[in-house]
Structure formats: C-alpha cells, structure tokens
C-alpha cells in the first residue's frame, strides 16, 4: 500500500490543511544555520528548522544524512562526542541552548531523549523511573515520588503491565515494554520536549504500534521530535516532516504535504523508494 493511501485511510481532523494551520502554533524550538563538524568532517550544513509546540516533527532521510546528529544537537548530547563542533543557533523558548547561561544538565532535563535501543538502567522498574526526579529533586518525600512514578508509567501506557512488579529489574521486560519504560523515565522529569531517535527500530510491529499510539497521546503535553527510517511511521505519527539529505535540510512542511506533494525532487525520490 502506498503511503499516500495510508494517509487517506487515517485522516486526522487537526492536520487537514486549512483547519489548523502550522503558523497558528508557537515555535517551541528554533534552529538557525546549525552546522556540525565531527573533527574535519562536516555532518550538517546550515540547518534552519522550527519545531512547533505540541506537535510531532518527524525527521526522515537516508542513512548518514545527519538527522540523528541534528536531534542530538537539540539537547546537547553531542557535547559528549569527542571532536564535535556545533555552530549556529538553537533556541528553546527563545533562549540559545548553547549560550553561556544555559547549563547542559538543566537543558537535558527540559529536553528529554529516548534512544534507538531501549536502554533501561540495570535497576528496578521503579528506580528507573524515579532516578530522574531523584537527582533533580523534583519529588519531596516517598509518597510524592511514588505518585510521579505512577503517573509517568501510566502516561507511558506501562502501568497496567508492571504495577505488581515495580521491584523487578527493568531489563527483565520485553523490548517494547523496555522502550515504554524509557519513555516513562524521560517524562518523569516533566520535560517540555521529547526527542526520539528511531525509537521503534529495535521493536516488533505490535510493540511499534503501541509506541506510535503513545506518541500520539503524548503530543497533548509535550513537543516531540522523532527520527525515523520508516516513512509509514513518519506519516502515521507526525504532523510536520523534515527531509534531510547529505547534511542538508531539503524541505520541511506539513506531513501530508511532504508525502503527497513534495516540492523537491530529492524528497520525491526518497519517499517513493528510489534511494534510501
């Protein structure tokens, strides 16, 4: 089934052009001329991109196009990479995240991240979720912490499955459950933005469907940026899509526009499977 048909099968009221335009929503994060070097190798060239509040932005593109690199610039995870240099300006609520006033630790609490491979800590399910609130001092007292853990697990759609086994290690869960645990861990510190780096690439289709539903629900409270290799997934979960190619952002538009009426030939070639 072609992507266009899928889009037609799953219409979203709020995504139809004309009903609620993209311009109506404020920008949560903005990127201007973001250029990244790994040593001498240039990974990103002058990316300009707006990330709108309470929407899902999908980053698509062939392998090595720089979409993950861009994602990791948004919460300064690239700081930990040896020889990585970021130029340009990335703003969160208008404040430069690479500015002197911003602390990377605080930024990462505000901009959470979910990784490609589920990476729960080798601790209990409870401790996995409680770790963030503990180190940031977000919960005072045992009861409040329990409350935060419960809310986070509920939001991640995992509460029903784990409520009787919170003391068991997080690594004992299935792959899909582990990934939802990682999402619960990320939202436990109540971030404003959640970055997801191919969150379903290590999961089976049923677990993937679970996560996709979850992403759609989380949109109400968080701004989400998701990197994906799976174009159907991008079409299903996102309202905006940005296509990256060879370190450049080729185009960014409403998801439906990108998949039905791409302006650039490279975008068209990619979404129709001519390369990738």
């Amino acid at each position: 089934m072609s992507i266009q048909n899928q889009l037609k099968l799953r219409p979203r009221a709020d995504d139809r052009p004309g009903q609620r335009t993209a311009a109506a929503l404020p920008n949560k994060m903005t990127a201007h001329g973001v250029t990244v070097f790994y040593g001498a190798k240039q990974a990103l060239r002058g990316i300009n991109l707006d990330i709108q509040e309470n929407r899902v932005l999908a980053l698509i593109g062939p392998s090595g196009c720089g979409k993950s690199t861009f994602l990791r610039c948004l919460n300064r995870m690239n700081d930990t990479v040896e020889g990585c240099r970021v130029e340009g300006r990335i703003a969160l609520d208008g404040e430069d995240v690479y500015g002197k006033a911003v602390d990377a630790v605080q930024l990462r609490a505000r901009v959470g991240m979910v990784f490609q491979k589920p990476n729960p800590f080798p601790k209990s399910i409870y401790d996995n979720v409680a770790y963030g609130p503990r180190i940031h001092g977000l919960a005072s007292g045992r009861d409040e912490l329990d409350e935060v853990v419960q809310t986070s697990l509920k939001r991640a759609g995992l509460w029903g499955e784990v409520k009787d086994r919170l003391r068991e290690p997080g690594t004992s869960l299935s792959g899909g459950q582990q990934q939802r645990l990682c999402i619960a861990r990320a939202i436990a510190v109540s971030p404003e933005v959640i970055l997801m780096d191919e969150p379903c690439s290590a999961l089976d289709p049923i677990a993937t469907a679970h996560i996709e539903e979850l992403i759609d629900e989380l949109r109400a409270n968080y701004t989400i940026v998701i990197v994906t290799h799976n174009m159907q997934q991008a079409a299903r979960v996102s309202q905006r899509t940005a296509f990256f190619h060879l370190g450049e952002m080729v185009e960014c538009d409403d998801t439906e526009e990108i998949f039905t009426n791409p302006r650039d030939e490279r975008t068209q070639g990619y979404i129709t499977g001519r390369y990738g």
Partner: protein
Amino acid sequence: MTDLVERDVAAVTPSPASSPGPSSAPKSRLRSEAFARRLRARHAAERRFRLAGAAAVALAALILLLLLGSIVAKGASAFWEARIRLEVTLDPAEVADRNYTAALRRALYAQFPQVTDRAGKRVLNDLLSSGAPYELEAMVAKNPALAGTTQTVWVRADDQIDQLVKGAYRRDLPETERGLSDAKVAAADALLASGALAQSFNTTLFTAGDSREPEQAGIGGAIIGSLLTLLVTMALSVPVGIAAAVYLEEFAPKNRWTDLIEVNINNLAAVPSIIFGLLGLAVFLGFFGMPRSAPLVGGLVMALMTLPVIIISARVALKAVPPSIRQAALGIGASPLQTVLHHVLPLAMPGILTGTIIGMARALGETAPLLMIGMVAFIVDIPRGLTDSATVLPVQIYMWADSPERAFTERTSAAILILLGVLILLNGAAVILRKIFERRW
C-alpha cells in the same frame, strides 16, 4: 507516482522463470567422493586439535598436582610438633629467680633414673627445646598460684627429636651418617615407649615470630607483616587507581598528553618489581628518611607496583560498560559525575574488584622490591605498627628455605601451603564479591 512505486515492487519480486540448471551443479559437487574425503580430513583435523588441547590441559594439571603434592608431602608434617610430658615441681625460690630450666631438667632426669653421668644428662638436656623454660614461665606468669605445686606439662621437644618422631632420621644408618647420636635416639625411644613423647597440633607455627630454633619459629610475625603491608598498599592503590582510571576513561580529553600518560602506565605495569624496590630505597628511605624494614615503606612500594595493574584493569572494566547506559543517564539530565557514580562505576565494579584483587595477590606474593628496603631481616618480634620492623610471608619462606636444619625444610613447605591458602582465600573473596555485585543488577 503510484505507477512508480508499483514498478519498483515488480523489480524486486524474483522472476519465476529462472532455470534450475546452475543450482544443480554445486549440489553434485557437494556429494562427490572428493568432497567426502575433504570432509573426513576436516573432521580429523578438528579431533586432533581438540586432543592437543585436552593434552595441554592434562599436562598442566599434572604438573600442578605434582608441585602441590610434593609441597604437601613435605610440609604437612610441620602442622604437628613433638612435645614431651613432664611432672614439673615448681620450687617457689626458682620461680622467684625465674629459673625454670632446673625444674624442667629435674623432671626429665626423674624419668631416666639410670642416667647419672654428665654426658648422659647433657643428652637428656638436648631433648628439650631451648624454648621450653619460656613456655613454663608464660604458664606461671598467667597463674602465679602454680608456684610451689607439681604440674603435668607438655613442653616442646628439640627440633631434632621432633624430626626423629616424624621419621626424618633413618634409624638403620650408623650414627655418623645419621646426624643424630644413638644416645638421643635411645632416650627419645624410651620416652615414646612410655607415652611421654607425642605429637600435637603445631600452634607455634601460626603464633610465633621467627627464631633460630626451628621448633620455636613461626610465621605469625610474617602474617601480621604481610597484613600491615597489604593494608597500606590497599589504602593507597585502590582509591588512587580507581580515581585515575575513572578520570582517564570518563573525563580526560583524548589528546597527546593523555596518550603519553596511557603509554607510561602500560610501561609501568611491565617494569620489573625490583626497580620499584630501588625507587623505594632511594625515595622513601633515602630522601624521606622513613624507617627501614617497615610495613609502611613496603606498602608504599607495593602500592606503586600495583597501581598500574589496578588502573589498567579498572579502565578495561569501565570501557566494557555499554555507552547506552551513559547516554541514558545524561539524557535525563544526570551530571557527568552522577552518571559515573550512579551507573557506570557500579556496573564496572565486578571487573575493578577482580583487577584489584589480582593486584593485591601479586603484592602479597612479591619479594624482590622488599629486599631493597630491608624487609629481608631476621625479626623475632611480631610487628605492632606500621613502622615496626617486619617481614612478610614470601620473604619468610625465602629465608627459611636458606636454613640448613631439616625442621626448617618442612616449615618452609608449610609456610608455602599457608601462603597458597591465603591466595586462594583472596581469589575466592574476589569471586564472591563479583557474584554479589552482579546479583544486585
């Protein structure tokens, strides 16, 4: 555009018209006689390789068994010592004079009424250990009410009698070749026959310090010396080693300086241990003027020696922690230090512990650097502090191995067994600790 997608799909679908011809050719080759021959040769090669491996393991096990067997055979008897039963009458005047030798001799002569001449009495005197009066003195010191009474005591026999009882001397040899006079053998046999000479568990071996007399010598001092030395080593090299490894692995920028440091640490691990001893002699004794033969200096030298081992093994353990754990912690806003302390270090702990205990075991068995700082010394007193003169287990073994007395030969083997036992304990502790730390996750 829809056409385009469908055309792509068509290109991927395999065409049903492909001929079966090319697939039948390799199949027949796989069933040929030549292939079967090659297959047999491959299996034979595998069997030969496995056999060689098993033979190597068996040979190693055999040599180890031989080594251990010979040590056990030589050393096992050292865990018993010969003692002589005497009815000692403690004269209060002699007790006041602290002259216990006379009382012991009187008791011994009483068992041999036929011996009256000086030469015969001298033979009897030699049956007792020169340390026997001190045993009696210690007994009376503990209970002064014993003065004036008659007590049955078991006192240590001389090391030659001890060896005779254990069968180290051949009775069928003539006196001159045996190395032990007929008179002594006869006296000892008489005591044996009356049950006044018997073997009991050798506590002296574990509690006493070194001595010129084998029957009074023990490794108590050496064990305490080893413990004190190891304590200093551990207190210094474990925290410094782990901190250095964590900094180099998790925080330090990768540049020319850290490369240089890494190369140097690797080189230090390969430096012969005697060099560390020379360094300790020059720096700790020569420059800082620390006391000679002290566990403090020994521990410092050992710490320098084990530091590279600990750093290297800790770095390997830290490297083995998957980067996804670090990313997970950093991703929810843990600071780099929190990431290391809460997640990376606990996961690396089993590996770090293994490396540390291997380092400690090496330090425990090391002799060469201690030669340089004067820990090879005849030390009778059991050390009471870090600056007291002391020796360590392997050095004690080395010194006893040099002694000509037969009794020292067996005690050398016994000391080796004890050292091996301590090493096995250490390694066992490493395994248990590793299990505990792994179970937590």
